[in-house]
């Protein structure tokens, strides 16, 4: 087990991502955030807080992808999380999807489908706290907190104070 990001480093990464979002989109007027439950939601709220302190309020929503997964035949049914439309909807907006860890890319593929059901955004961007590689689909992030090269025997754990009581990112060996 090794610590990758501590509380201060997570805060710094989110601050940097916020500035990158503003820079790339020339402000925040067209931006809406959509966090992917569970932890993406909390990251989305945190980013919204930082963006608000820099530029002003940004609509935040949450996007449950459970019903759009492609691995239903492989795993037990999961409980559904909440989907919340950001104020003003998604139609014509620049949507920033937010998740904690980017891995195979399948979650994001499902998220793009789920988002497509809600409307037609002008563009979709992707922000993740950790990119651990091993993509199985042609998907890349636009904003990354930290790139962590991992082996498939390892698992990346993100803990956030909102539900885990502390902020940290660590790598854990998976027992076979």
């Amino acid at each position, binding site marked *: 087990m090794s610590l990758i990001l501590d509380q201060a480093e997570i805060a710094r990464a989110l601050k940097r991502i916020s500035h990158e979002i503003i820079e790339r989109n020339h402000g925040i007027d067209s931006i809406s955030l959509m966090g992917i439950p569970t932890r993406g939601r909390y990251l989305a709220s945190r980013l919204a807080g930082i963006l608000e302190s820099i530029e002003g309020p940004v609509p935040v929503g949450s996007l449950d992808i459970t*019903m759009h997964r492609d691995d239903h035949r492989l795993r*037990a*049914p999961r*409980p559904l999380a*909440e989907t919340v439309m950001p104020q003003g909807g998604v139609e014509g907006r620049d949507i920033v999807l937010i998740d904690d860890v980017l891995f195979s890319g399948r979650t994001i593929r499902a998220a793009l489908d789920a988002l497509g*059901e809600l409307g037609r955004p002008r563009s979709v961007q992707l922000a993740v706290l950790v990119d651990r590689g091993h993509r199985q689909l042609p998907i890349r992030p636009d904003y990354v907190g930290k790139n962590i090269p991992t082996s498939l025997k390892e698992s990346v754990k993100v803990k956030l104070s909102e539900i885990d009581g502390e902020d940290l990112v660590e790598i854990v060996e998976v027992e076979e």
Partner: protein
Amino acid sequence: MKHLLSIADLSEFEIVGILDTASELEKLTSGSVKKLPTLRGRTVVNLFFEDSTRTRLSFESAAKRLSADVTNFSAKGSSVSKGESLKDTAQTLEAMGADLIVIRHPASGAAKRLAESGWIESSVINAGDGTHEHPTQALLDAFTIRKHFGSTLTTFSGLKIAIVGDILHSRVARSNVLLLRKMGADVTLIAPPTLLPSTIDSWGVRSSYDFDENLEEFDVVMMLRVQLERMNDSFFPNGREYSKGYGLDGDRLKRLKSNAIVMHPGPMNRGLEISAASADSIRSVVIDQVSNGVVVRMAALYQLLGGPNISSTHETLGA
């Protein structure tokens, strides 16, 4: 979860899980999104040996909204009238690719027999077996109650619920009593002595012959259909006598609590167990029950088909 045969097989936790899933599905499909891709490539067969409008249509829309393929089978006009057995019919349907069979049958225990006899590999949902159970009806009724009294309730303790009418022939009443007791509601069954089962003492709920007693106290009044087709004897003198004693008419409706709701599983015998005024009043949630039925059945289909295929046919839900 492999089968949904009886409320008795479900834990309180599983019941709340299905209701929560249904709530999220309702929010998800209430806007422009009417269809989800989740069960693409799965086949649901509605195997109906008894007439039905809303249950069959409800399962059909639920399956379609999850992108499953649906085949409808009704015994009338099929080889069943040539004497084909349940086993042969079910095996035929499975050979055509059914992943889940929704069965309604006039014999109590038919769904369990289908699920557990080793005839087929498919999942089975009991959509009403004789006078035994109708679990998805009880789940949708619980969902409806939750929408009125708190959509995140994990217990019904403190709620007073009356189930009124033909308890003897009602699978809806049996499933509801099991579910409502698990959820901690205070249930009273109200019926003439001839329409209360003789085993009523073992149900663990109160019973009464008098509808007018304590009418003001109930939060939910669940009216049951008088099942004339199952009556091979005279259980009450005539329709008018029954309505007088056990029908929900305008006068009784007025006596209900201000936030009480009136439920009926349908189809209604207007003028017999429920007056038109009561059925169409603002307290009536009969139409809501129908739309809630679709999302609750979506949740049940997702629970049963949303995971990997389970090869064992003997594993039942809750086991």
